[in-house]
């Protein structure tokens, strides 16, 4: 039996190191198998108490990474650690005790035949925390923490609005006082006025409880508002990673620059941006040679088409582009 590495309190709370995840998928009716490269050598760390943003388009690997960080799947290569100890070696329940998910769609993430009090109380029961009366008290506290009235405890999810359901999902995630929330598009199913309420709630919870978060979103204005650090995923690679303000104010990777330019805030009378971005889409079953972004990059050269760029430190952040300076 291999020795279990000791927990390291100085290590980042959750860390992915050179994580690769492939899926074998069937490409047609005749059972041809192909390899889908969801993640290819990704580094990401969530320090204690930090809010880390993860942005990228659909198919870039955001949700795969969130499942790996939750310990729901194991990487094909590389490793995910909790305080320096591989998550794969930690019993499932101990991981769940410290890392909890908040999913995108509160309509499908809550069991419709359970009352709210039972939904929120289940993690307490599973982890054997407290007895009946103390759990009931804790459920009331949690409802109060997420801004729901106590009478909601007896309601079924169907009686709640989308915003109220997402508050229930957040209360459930917080029930066992985890150290990290993995929030996968927590507001994209909600209207803007409700989105603002949930974002405010997450900001308040962070101040009050110090919980760390991975905040996954396709909405860059929201990520810019919510996070300290941000990682930009493109086709399974982190192409730029650093302090949020620096990455968004002066992007070094052409893809980050295009993402930033495509944010349509209601302030600007500038009209629509002319994105320096091609419309050729890469196939994750057959990622392009060289730099994975080159088919869409207007600055691509022969070097980009043949040689994959190494991740370098540029202007205080990690960038994966031959030409970033």
């Amino acid at each position, binding site marked *: 039996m291999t020795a279990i590495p000791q927990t390291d309190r100085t290590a980042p709370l959750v860390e992915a190191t050179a994580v690769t995840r492939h899926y074998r998928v069937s490409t047609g009716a005749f059972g041809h198998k192909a390899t889908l490269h969801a993640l290819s050598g990704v580094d990401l760390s969530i320090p204690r108490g930090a809010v880390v943003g993860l942005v990228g*388009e659909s198919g870039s690997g955001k949700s795969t990474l969130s499942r790996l960080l939750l310990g729901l799947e194991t990487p094909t290569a590389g490793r995910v650690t909790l305080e320096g100890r591989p998550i794969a070696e930690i019993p499932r329940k101990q991981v769940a005790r410290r890392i909890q998910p908040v999913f995108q769609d509160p309509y499908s993430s809550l069991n419709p035949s359970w009352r709210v009090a039972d939904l929120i109380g289940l993690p307490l029961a599973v982890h054997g925390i407290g007895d009946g009366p103390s759990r009931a008290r804790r459920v009331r506290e949690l409802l109060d923490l997420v801004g729901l009235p106590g009478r909601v405890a007896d309601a079924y999810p169907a009686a709640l609005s989308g*915003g109220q359901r997402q508050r229930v999902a957040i209360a459930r995630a917080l029930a066992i006082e985890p150290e990290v929330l993995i929030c996968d598009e927590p507001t994209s199913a909600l209207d803007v006025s409700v989105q603002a309420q949930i974002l405010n709630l997450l900001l308040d919870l962070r101040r009050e409880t110090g919980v760390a978060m991975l905040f996954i979103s*396709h909405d*860059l204005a929201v990520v810019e508002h919510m996070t300290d650090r941000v990682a930009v995923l493109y086709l399974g690679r982190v192409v730029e990673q650093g302090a*949020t303000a620096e990455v968004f104010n002066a992007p070094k990777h052409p893809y980050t620059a295009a*993402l930033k330019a495509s944010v349509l805030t209601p302030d600007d*009378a500038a*009209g629509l941006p002319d994105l320096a971005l091609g419309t050729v889409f890469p196939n994750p079953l057959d990622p392009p040679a060289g730099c994975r972004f080159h088919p869409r990059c207007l600055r691509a050269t022969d070097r980009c088409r043949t040689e994959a760029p190494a991740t370098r430190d540029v202007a205080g952040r990690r960038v994966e582009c031959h030409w970033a300076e």
Partner: protein
Amino acid sequence: MTDLLSISDLSVTVRTPAGPLHAVRGVDLAVGRGETLCLVGESGCGKSMTALSLMDLLPGTARRSVGRFTFAGRDVPARGHGSIAALRGDRLAMIFQEPMTALNPTFRIGDQLIAVYRTHRRAPVAEARDRAVALLERVGISNAAIRLRQYPHEMSGGLRQRVMIAMALMCQPDLIIADEPTTALDVTIQAQILKLLKDLQADFGMGLVLITHDLGVVSRIADRVAVMYAGRVVEAGPAATVLGRPRHPYTQGLLDAVPRPGVHRPGERLGTIPGTVPSLIGGVTGCAFRDRCRRSVPACATTDPALAAVDGSAAVACVNPVPADAERAA
């Protein structure tokens, strides 16, 4: 500008088990040639029902009533020559949110494009195919002749939406109604599709009615905007005026709720609109927004305000509108 399409006193009532739901309650809209009108609002405000009733595509449970409905200067009859059913796909075209469900998965996209054209024009297949190829190229699809032989599932979401736009353009319509055309797409693709719509509009001089929940999209593409809440237009006017100096508390609330770099500091609490949308089943008395409104006064419970002009060009339906000189960024 003479109106290309104008509709007055549009109401839509949907039959539900709990009683009639008043989804649209007395809406007036007009859009001119070459003009972009954005209908903006949150889920359930009636914006999609408004769009569907303009296209005569309401579900069977919904009933529409209209004061006056004109298109290209003529009254639109309920059926027959000149009705929406006859104009649809020809003079008016619609682009839906999810192109995967709007395109028929069992036909090649070429056949679908050609069918649209030949339904309205007595034209040989070759002419229709040439037009399809030209339009696919115009909307930024390379290898158009090969793409014609593909099925919708063989394309990405962005490409399918480009196909939908090409299909809408087949008969060179006077008006396009687009219901959340970019909501299902990634942000970079969204910007490119909106840009394409704007460019095509400049080329063909079409009117465009764009339905969206995204005020950022409105500010970048709209000439005029109508903000909807609970089946009513609560504020309307030139986009720059309405978004720059909102007078309805709801419009202001929406703008304050969106994180905006430069307006909100990172990590700062965002503005919220407390409460939820009222039920539109049965009747609504007074202003439907009053329970969520910070500026409500006793008169709001009894008066259902009509749109009235403010600032010359804009109109607001509010008993106690936001003062014109109020601090916006607060």
